[in-house]
């Protein structure tokens, strides 16, 4: 029993890497534009299907398909941004409706292009077992977990050290003041969408490589990312990382100890429990907003 629990903690931790990338993208866009991109999970899904096509049609290892996923997903993210930026009044609310609709369109586009069949990688190298003491995983899980950590580290560096990363934070902190510094908020918003697209691309390929994909997955991923972002306390990067691992672990423990049918429900229960005890999220604590 202990081994089972240890194993599911480990699996949960590994899947948390991809969840973190998805949630960080959602949180980044929310920070700069104060909108929740409900089509974000579909962008991740798109990356997963790009990896599928690259593998099944051109025999590429999913890792090698990341550059193609980057191009296609970032272009789609820019398209979503261009549509959202056309909203003139009440952007916070209207963008919910718009991105929800875009998500449906993307899901159905995926359905038309790739059909409703369940897909997963056929790369033997990625599916090889990696044994770490008593713990097992597929090689893809470990590879993409490390990649996710590296990307999260890169994002942290970008946000805290680079000019544009700091400009993104300045715009999310105080839009008018950022303009007074000579920062063009429109370009900053676009940059945040592209960076979210980069994170989504890698997350999508990760999910394709270590799990199964089908067209309805995008919506589920958006919900997971949203849960993590709120759990974290909006705007907290360590919170997002912790929230992602917490969600991954909760899901995998639920599958191990109860039933895989309860996996999605477990995330929601975790969400309600945390918000009940800590209404500002895990890291939202004493921060004053405004």
């Amino acid at each position, binding site marked *: 029993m202990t081994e089972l629990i240890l194993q599911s903690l480990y699996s949960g931790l590994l899947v948390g890497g991809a969840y973190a990338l998805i949630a960080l993208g959602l949180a980044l866009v929310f920070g700069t534009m104060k909108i929740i991109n409900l089509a974000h999970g579909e962008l991740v899904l798109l990356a997963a299907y790009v990896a599928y096509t690259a593998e099944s049609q051109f025999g590429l290892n999913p890792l090698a398909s990341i550059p193609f996923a980057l191009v296609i997903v970032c272009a789609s993210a820019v398209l979503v941004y261009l549509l959202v930026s056309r909203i003139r009044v009440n952007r916070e609310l209207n963008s919910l409706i718009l991105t929800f609709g875009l998500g449906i369109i993307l899901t159905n586009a995926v359905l038309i292009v790739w059909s409703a069949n369940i897909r997963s990688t056929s790369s033997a190298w990625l599916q090889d077992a990696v044994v770490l003491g008593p713990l097992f995983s597929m090689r893809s899980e470990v590879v993409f977990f490390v990649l996710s950590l590296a990307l999260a580290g890169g994002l942290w560096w970008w946000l*805290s050290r680079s*000019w544009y990363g*700091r*400009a993104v*934070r*300045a715009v*999310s*902190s*105080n839009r*008018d*003041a*950022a*303009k*007074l*510094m*000579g*920062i*063009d*908020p429109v370009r900053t918003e676009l940059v945040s969408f592209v960076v979210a697209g980069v994170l989504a691309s890698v997350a999508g390929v990760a999910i394709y490589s270590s799990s199964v994909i089908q067209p309805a997955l995008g919506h589920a991923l958006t919900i997971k990312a949203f849960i993590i972002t709120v759990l974290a306390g909006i*705007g907290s990067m360590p919170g997002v990382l912790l929230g992602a691992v917490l969600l991954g672990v909760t899901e995998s423990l639920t599958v191990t100890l109860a039933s895989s049918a309860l996996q999605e429900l477990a995330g929601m229960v975790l969400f309600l429990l945390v918000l009940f005890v800590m209404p500002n999220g895990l890291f939202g604590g004493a*921060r*004053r907003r*405004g």
Partner: protein
Amino acid sequence: MLEVNRVRAGYGAINVLWDLSLTIREGEVTAIIGPNGAGKTTLLRAIMGLIPLSQGDIALHGDSLAGRQTWSIARHGISLIPEGRLVFRDMTVEDNLTMGAFPNSRRAGVAHNLARVYELFPRLAERRRQLAGALSGGEAQMVAIGRGLMAEPSVLLVDEPSLGLAPVMVQEIFGILERLKAEGRTIVLVEQNTHLALSLADHVHLMQAGRLLLSEPAPRVDLQRLHDLYFAR
């Protein structure tokens, strides 16, 4: 150097500035005083392009600023130190200051300008790693001023620097403005505290209800007359 020419501006249907004209001269401290609601802050916001002009023009060194975006005006060399500070609360003091140098042409001078700001405000050097949201009102005002200086502006617009500060802190802030004046900077100071403004200014404009009531060199200002105009309805 900064010409405001028959400017009309306001918020939506409510007009605040009525055909306002004034000239800011290089190397001078120009004080704009007046009661609450006179349109002083609105004038600064109009100069920065935060609200659009419905009529008239504003020009810096002869280049029209009307219709330009705020960030483009800021890159052009005008810094506004906003009322209520508007610091980036979730960023450190040093990151706040650094963002002042965001325009490409200013980035090379970051290290030098940071050192200058820390020399002006030693207190900020002590708090460089703290979040700006955790500072006192006076310290936040120092961050706002320092951040404005990081852009090496040709004109510094300062909106109500004494607002909500303890008297000791007000003295300290005005001491800094004094030093900036001595360096020969062009400063536009919006202030409700007439005495403080007059002590610093080379030229004084009195605004009321979106118009200029008085425009005089500071030494010629007759306080009694100024107060009569100030409180006249």
